[in-house]
């Protein structure tokens, strides 16, 4: 008993928790399972990106340069506006995709703020921060729609290449990987809309906690996390 009493508080609680009936990680079941799903999903994306690396290395100097492929702003109305302002929308390398990156980073921030409002049991705070998250997600999907359209018009498809992309592999990998990521964003937006509606209806006040916001928050941050690496592989290197 004397030895046990000298144990650090945290450690002592560990021993108690391992005796059963409690989560040893002191986390809800759903949150742990969301993490495990995200780990498995990381491996799916990692195998795509590693395939990208392997195929890129086989092409050597033939691999297209990101600043040449992604050199324009593909949204017609924005391009017109830029022309009026004196900029050439065809020669703004990486500007558009940087905007997409900032959309995801901003939505990650509002999502984590929604989670924090959930910890305070602040129903309308959660809804207030979920709405900009949903808007940023939808804008991201729209941006991807315009970018894909622009690239397909320039001749790059999963089975062919444009002047700028030089090799077929680039198109294959680009559409598969950004498409799979876009699918995740779409799923996240749908789940976030459900989450905002449920919060507004007071579903989580009845449950007594806002853990669901945290679980879907984990998923949404994961989508941002994957984009960091998609961005690195396709646009930065």
């Amino acid at each position, binding site marked *: 008993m004397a030895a046990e009493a000298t144990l650090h508080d945290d450690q002592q609680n560990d021993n108690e928790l391992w005796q059963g009936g409690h*989560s040893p990680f002191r986390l809800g079941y759903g949150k742990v399972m969301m993490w495990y799903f995200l780990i498995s999903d990381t491996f799916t994306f990692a195998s795509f990106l590693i395939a990208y690396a392997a195929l890129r290395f086989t092409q050597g100097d033939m691999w297209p340069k990101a600043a040449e492929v992604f050199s324009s702003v593909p949204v017609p109305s924005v391009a017109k506006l830029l022309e009026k302002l004196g900029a050439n929308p065809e020669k703004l390398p990486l500007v558009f995709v940087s905007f997409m990156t900032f959309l995801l980073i*901003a939505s990650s921030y509002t999502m984590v703020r929604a989670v924090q409002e959930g910890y305070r049991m602040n129903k309308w705070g959660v809804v207030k921060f979920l709405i900009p998250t949903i808007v940023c997600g939808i804008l991201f999907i729209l941006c991807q729609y315009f970018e894909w359209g622009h690239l397909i018009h320039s001749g790059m498809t999963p089975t062919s290449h444009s002047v700028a992309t030089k090799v077929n592999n680039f198109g294959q990998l680009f559409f598969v990987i950004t498409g799979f990521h876009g699918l995740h964003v779409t799923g996240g937006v749908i789940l976030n809309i459900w989450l905002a509606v449920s919060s507004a209806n007071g579903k989580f006040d009845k449950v007594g906690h806002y*853990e669901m916001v945290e679980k879907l928050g984990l998923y949404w*941050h994961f989508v941002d996390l994957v984009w960091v690496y998609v961005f690195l592989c396709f646009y930065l290197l």
Partner: protein
Amino acid sequence: MNFDEPVQGHLHWTDGEYVDGRKEVLKTIVILSVVTVVEVGIAIGYEKLANDAGKYKWVINLLMAIFSVIKVIYIMGTFMHLKHEKKGFILTVLLPFLFLVWAIIAFTVEGSSWQYMRTWLNAF
């Protein structure tokens, strides 16, 4: 920590925790934005930098990889709350990624080898 709710974890914050949490998140978003701006800046000037640096191109690539790792650490640590979880859980999440270290090395080496075979076969 509030031990009244050990099964669900720590789902209700006090005022103090809320204020600290807000500050931490604000700091993180500023760091993420700055790192992204620097990354894009380097990427736009990549060709020029790579030409000037000559054979030191790998330094730029390494720098980009380090920037991405920094971003991931902040997103997972702060946004996904991982750094505040128990040590056992942090290890559960992070250790599987050690397999990827092997996979990345193996497949990039394999890719280089395919390229070599391709040039070798083209000679005939």
